């Protein structure tokens, strides 16, 4: 597409080179770079400039032009070398990752196939869709959705109505919490502030006497929510439920980030921003699939604190940890990391599905170590308990 759309550069460069560039741009796009026509045009300018004489100046030029984020920046050299210097040509650039889309769909197809072969039909019957069976089995989306439902345990919330309700709740939660007063404005409570610009404008019609005073209104600021979801084996009865909740929150909030952890931590906001719920949840369950080996809450938090916290947490962030607190790591580490996290964010909410169980006491060592740093320790085993969270977050 790029090859045909590019206008010839001001200084004419060879057609071969232009085609090479178009191919390079395509490879970059395949690798997840956001490259538009304007960039391609500028790249042609660079190729026609003295900077193109040596690879040592061409590479940094194109890197500055085509990269938009740090991860682009880090991957660029590899792709560049593969394309222009012929180190392994295209196969190498494919290996460099980020063709995640391709890999994902391959995996999904594989899963869907497996599903069709083994457990597909009975599962569908169970959920009362037997009538549409013949029609549904031909569509790959139908199959993969069935797979998502099957692979993530839905014992507690399998009813489509309930799923819809979870989403509606997350939306409602989001709406009510989205806007909150900036602290700065609240602190300045003695005396509202006059909006001089508007006041003077109004005064003109009164011959310059400011009769109508216009006041500045406090600016509403969104609360930022960061959710860390434990996707370990001991939580699997709830994971699917929370993944849906996560999707609702990330979808509705302008500023929400989601992470999933079991033995390690994965940043999943991007996958969750998919409008297609089924696909997002499907993708996430793939990520959440552990290799087994227990939950490392402490280590996951350490990763979070070290690599993500500075970027995703600000002074009006509520961190919500969803976990049962069964940690196979050292409780001391968990305590330490919780303490660090506490210092950075505004509130820590720990949702533990097990509080809902009868006679539950936070006896797990990890849970005990973390508790002193938690602002709200609340149950989260059903919709009601999540709804109870809403007024609390509103007060933050």
């Amino acid at each position, binding site marked *: 597409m790029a090859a045909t759309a590019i206008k010839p550069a001001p200084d004419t460069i060879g057609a071969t080179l232009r085609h090479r560039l178009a191919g390079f741009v395509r490879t970059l796009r395949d690798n997840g770079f*956001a490259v*538009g026509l*304007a*960039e391609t045009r*500028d790249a042609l*300018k*660079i190729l026609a*400039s*003295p*900077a193109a004489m040596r690879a*040592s*100046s061409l590479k*940094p*030029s194109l*890197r*500055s*032009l085509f*990269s*938009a*984020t*740090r991860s*682009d*920046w*880090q991957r660029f050299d590899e792709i560049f070398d593969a394309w222009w210097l012929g180190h392994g040509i295209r196969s190498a650039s494919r290996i460099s990752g980020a063709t995640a889309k391709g890999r994902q769909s391959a995996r999904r197809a594989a899963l869907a196939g497996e599903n069709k072969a083994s457990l597909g039909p009975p599962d569908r019957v169970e959920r009362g869709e037997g009538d549409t069976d013949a029609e549904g089995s031909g569509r790959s989306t139908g199959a993969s959705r069935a797979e998502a439902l099957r692979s993530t345990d839905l014992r507690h919330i399998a009813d489509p109505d309930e799923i819809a309700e979870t989403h509606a709740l997350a939306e409602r939660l989001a709406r009510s919490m989205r806007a909150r007063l*900036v602290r*700065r404005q609240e602190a300045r409570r003695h005396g509202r502030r006059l909006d*001089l*610009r508007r006041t*003077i404008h109004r*005064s*003109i*019609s009164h*011959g*310059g006497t*400011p009769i109508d005073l216009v006041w500045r209104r406090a*600016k509403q*600021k969104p609360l930022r929510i960061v959710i860390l979801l434990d996707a370990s084996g001991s939580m699997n009865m709830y994971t699917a439920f929370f993944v849906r909740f996560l999707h609702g929150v990330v979808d509705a909030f*302008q*500023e929400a980030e989601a992470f999933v952890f079991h033995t390690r931590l994965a940043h999943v906001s991007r996958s969750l921003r998919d409008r297609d719920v089924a696909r997002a949840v499907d993708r996430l369950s793939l990520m959440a699939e552990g290799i087994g080996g227990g939950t490392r809450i402490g280590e996951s938090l350490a990763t979070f604190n*070290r690599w993500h916290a*500075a*970027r995703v947490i*600000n002074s009006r962030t509520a961190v919500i940890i969803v976990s049962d607190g069964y940690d196979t790591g050292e409780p001391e580490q968990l305590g330490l990391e919780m303490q*660090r996290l506490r210092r950075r964010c505004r509130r820590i909410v720990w949702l533990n599905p097990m509080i809902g169980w009868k006679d539950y006491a936070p006896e797990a060592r990890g849970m005990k170590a973390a508790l002193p740093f938690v602002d709200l320790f609340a149950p989260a085993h059903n919709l009601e308990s999540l709804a109870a969270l809403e007024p609390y977050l509103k007060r933050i």
Partner: protein
Amino acid sequence: MSLTRDQISEKLAEAGYIADRDLAMALWLMDFLKRPLLLEGEAGVGKTEVAKALAKVHGAELIRLQCYEGLDQNAALYEWNYQRQLLAIKAREGEDADTLEEHIFSEKYLLERPLLAAIRRLDPPVLLIDEVDRADEEFEAFLLEVLSDFQVSIPELGTITATAIPRVVLTSNGTRELSDALRRRCLYHYVDFPEVDREARIILTRLPGIDATLALQVARMIAAIRKEDLRKVPGVAETLDWAATLAGLGLHDLRAEPEAIYDTLICVLKTHEDRANIGRELTDRLLGKVA
């Protein structure tokens, strides 16, 4: 006048900024493609310094817009001088409302803020939009508009078009994700902590009187400290502070007085926790490795 990359490198060095070659390339591209440059990197790697040095390289004025939460167009673009307007209204009481309006919304009562200032200069200035990630999304969208058209409209006055296109440098610490549109609009450069050699050269440039061996040792020591698990990783400014302190104490070799090293580490480690982490033993061990 268009400078080549090597000229830019040289001039940056003259201005006291030791740049890596890729950065010089990016600065050259800024002029060549007339695009803003977005600099990302951890706090303290010298992003703001790049803009200051760039202004010196081109002999241009530096106009700085520091972004913060709640920054709005009034503070970034222009504001009317209300006090004078009120006075004028009082002084001209009884005049026709239209004439009065025209009078008090004239150039005379306009207060330039950084963005407006940047596009009204005759010689293209360097416009530094610092920590753009701290500003709100709405402001970012507005900024995008200004950066693509280089014209602003003031309802009471009309549209003002840039007399000279400023060189724009944006910096971000990554406290918030910037919009894709803004990222696309800009050239991108990731500024990393300088490697040991370059940091040593920075020390030598900024503190001309210092011992070359000491500068190298300090640079190595800082590099080692940065590898530790710290809450606040020391930036280049901290390095310079520390080097200046050590030089001020008359040290020529880090090994000579480990006690002094430990005591002066307060220049580098800025939180209680980090201070506790890098204890005496660890300091000695790091010293043994680098000196």
